[in-house]
């Protein structure tokens, strides 16, 4: 009933995975057990995903295994333009599937090495056909896959350190929007920018200290990587012949900063069955100040305009996470958690590609171990973004009129499943 009235009153419906579990366009679905515990993982070790969450904790994993997980992010985003506008009737809800996989090897009691692949950043949105902001963005698909080689060493039974070499192994971007240029035969011009990111390296480091069996502390850092696309393709369609000379660009280049993250965590085991975890993350989004494109010719802004700059002005963002795990039987563990994540996008700077907001997440999960060697992990995440508005006056005041005034509201549900094999 509410969904119907929304269609009538002018909501634009769209699909996104943007920002599942973390601010901005972080994804953070990097370990199924961790997802079930509110995204914690810095102050304890749950499995080989410690390579991502805290390579120092990885030193204590103590067995060799392979694990893989996949998630289905089911986003629901609604937009209502300022002043009401007209109804947007077409919706393109699309699910996306961030994955993670790790292999960890116990070299000896002190030394553990591993390989992992995960999707730390990404976004995919397909706005409804003809939506209010179609001249700012109609579609975005942003994918990044990191692979990581990790080594961790337990200096003492209480103190572990680890480091990983991280590579942006695969990155691609596909941005589309309509161009406000209509032809007499009824077509609207449309531009697509797509390209692959260069391979780039980064690292992560971590430390874990376990003063007792009941308590552990961890800290980790993951470096920033500037995802750079050079020689991306510019494709335009539906350009009226009389305006074609303004659209000569065939290639573009752009840089998207993927920020560094500081994490601190505490793990508590009051008894053999119960584990509690607390994490705090600081994501250095403030390095994302502007999105700049350069083109090999004229595009979007006319023949003489070969670059564009759009203000982002992100701020550093903190996330606070809490999770618990309870071992019901020797084979079954259940998990629950929650988090509160502060937006990295300031008021009046919201863009259609990242309709960020402060959000609350609730998570649940379980592990069922069929044997000593094989088990499955299930997880579920539900995330509720605070409704967020910006007015045309805000946009004018901030110099951010390249986006739309209105209200965004997002929820995301992410069921996920993983398997692991110990050997």
């Amino acid at each position: 009933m509410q969904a119907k009235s929304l269609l009538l009153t002018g909501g634009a419906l769209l699909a996104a995975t943007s920002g599942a579990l973390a601010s901005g366009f972080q994804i953070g679905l990097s370990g199924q057990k961790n997802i079930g515990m509110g995204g914690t993982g810095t102050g304890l070790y749950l499995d080989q995903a410690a390579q991502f969450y805290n390579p120092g904790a990885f030193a204590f994993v103590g067995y060799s295994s392979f694990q893989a997980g996949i998630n289905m992010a089911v986003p629901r985003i609604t937009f209502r333009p300022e002043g009401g506008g007209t109804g947007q009737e077409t919706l393109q809800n699309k699910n996306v599937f961030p994955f993670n996989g790790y292999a960890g090897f116990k070299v000896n009691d002190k030394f553990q090495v591993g390989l992992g692949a995960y999707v730390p950043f990404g976004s995919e949105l397909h706005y409804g056909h003809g939506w209010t902001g179609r001249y700012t963005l109609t579609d975005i698909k942003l994918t990044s896959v990191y692979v990581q080689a990790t080594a961790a060493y337990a200096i003492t039974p209480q103190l572990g350190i680890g480091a990983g070499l991280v590579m942006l192994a695969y990155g691609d971007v596909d941005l589309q929007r309509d161009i406000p240029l209509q032809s007499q035969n009824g077509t609207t011009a449309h531009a697509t920018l797509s390209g692959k990111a260069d391979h780039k390296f980064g690292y992560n480091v971590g430390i874990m200290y376990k003063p007792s069996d009941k308590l552990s502390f961890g800290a980790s850092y993951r470096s920033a990587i500037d995802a750079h696309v050079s020689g991306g393709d510019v494709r335009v369609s539906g350009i009226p012949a009389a305006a074609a000379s303004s659209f000569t660009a065939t290639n573009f280049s752009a840089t998207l900063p993927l920020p560094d993250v500081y994490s601190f965590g505490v793990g508590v085991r009051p008894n053999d069955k119960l584990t509690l975890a607390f994490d705090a993350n600081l994501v250095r989004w403030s390095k994302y100040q502007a999105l700049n494109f350069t083109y090999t010719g004229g595009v979007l802004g006319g023949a003489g305009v070969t670059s564009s700059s759009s203000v982002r002005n992100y701020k550093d963002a903190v996330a606070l996470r809490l999770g618990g795990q309870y071992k019901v039987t020797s084979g079954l563990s259940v998990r629950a958690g929650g988090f509160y994540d502060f937006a990295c996008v300031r008021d009046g700077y919201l863009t259609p590609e990242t309709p960020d907001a402060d959000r609350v997440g609730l998570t649940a999960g379980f592990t069922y171990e069929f044997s000593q060697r094989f088990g499955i992990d299930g997880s579920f995440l539900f995330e509720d973004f605070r409704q967020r508005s910006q007015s045309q006056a805000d946009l004018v005041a901030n110099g951010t009129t390249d986006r739309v005034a209105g209200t965004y509201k997002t929820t995301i549900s992410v069921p996920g499943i993983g398997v692991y094999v110990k050997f």
Partner: protein
Amino acid sequence: MKAFPALALLGLAGCQADIDAPSASAGSANFSRYIAIGNSLTGGTEDGGVYREGQLNSYPSMLAQQFALAGGGAFNQPLFTEAQANGSGYLRLAGFTATGTPITSAVTTNLAIRAVTPTVVYTKYLDRVDNLGMDGIKLADIQTANFGNVSPARAYSDANFNAYFERITPDGSSQTYFQRVKAEVAGTTNTPAATFFSCWLGNNDVLAYATGGGAVATRAITRTDTFNLKAVRIINALTANGAKGIVSNIPDVAGIPFFNTVGPSARALLAAANVPTAAPFVYTTGILAPLQPNTRVNTTLASVRSAGGSEPLLLTLTAAPYVSLYGQRTGKYWRDFYAQARPGLPAAIPNLSVFLATLQVDTTQAFGASSGNPFPSTLVLDATEQANVSAATTAFNNSLQAAASAKGLAFFDAYTYFRSVAAGPSVINGVNNSAGFITGNLFSLDGVHPTPRGYALVANEMIKAINAKYGSSVPQVNPTSYRGVLFP
């Protein structure tokens, strides 16, 4: 246990996030029958003509569509039929010259022209009409008898006759526009009384003078006392039965592309051709008509308004075909003027050479650069004429505002709004909108009337004023879903 969370949460995932939206309401207004009073802007004229697409995208049509969300009823416009969709004909963009000057061409198919003699008339429309926007009407015209009656002997373009009013007026009726408005306000057995109105009249009382370069005797600025009297009269008539409404004032005509396109492009082209700005520019000022002396002004090209400049002379969009002839020994303008004037010329002017002699024009001299072959005042709005326009606009707007506030009506300050548009581009939903010709998205190819997107912004400004005045909550339209200029 295993299946439970996944299933429950998949259920949650199906729910669309919901935004609380204020529901549309009329507040203290009543939109059950809305009527629109006005001129070409209200009728939806664009691209120099009245045609079906423009009518469908008129701001009253948009308002009525939004009012319908808040209790508004049917809104009937005198639409041209699909078969005669091109109505009066209009301009379309055909392309650009090598130097970037736009080329327009006239659409002449599927017209709704019923006859061309003694004057042009269109296919009749005698059903209920809620949009009374009549292209060309001045506020001064509202009490002109036989304004929609073609039967009295009519000259080719008789200022006391309006072909669009003729369309909606039964044959032989001498009804004035004012009488028609009163009849619509009162309602009939089949048509309810009007409960809400918009009134945007008065533009042509000054625009007709300005677009004619202040050179056409029959297009004089309306006297302020006449304007004031008729403004009060029409507002009184509209509110006689207690209807509420919105009154708009008139924009500064000097801010429209009609006056700000050709001067700057001519300056740029002449500069590119290495013509010095000190080169002579000779134009006539005041009335330009055969058998009447005309005054010539000797100045230089430096007086012509350049892009972003403040030089005194504004060239009209209608000057576009002639500016490139500057400095040539040509009589093109004068031949065109003769062809246009010919049906009304007295027997004393039997041919072109006599016509030229009475105007004291020698077409063997350099056009626009010599006093023998001056640039005609019909294509120039000089400082004196601009001052006349500005003074009249201010006086008319004072009358309109006083008449509106006397009745406690909502008011759309179009003067201020269009000044802000002219001052610089505003970006709405990621689209640059400005007063630039063709590239600005807001003004159509005639340089005077908005595009559908321009009309959408007007509708939104009116909705804001209505909501503020009557405590209503009428949603705005989405301007980006309406087109700007269409390109070939």
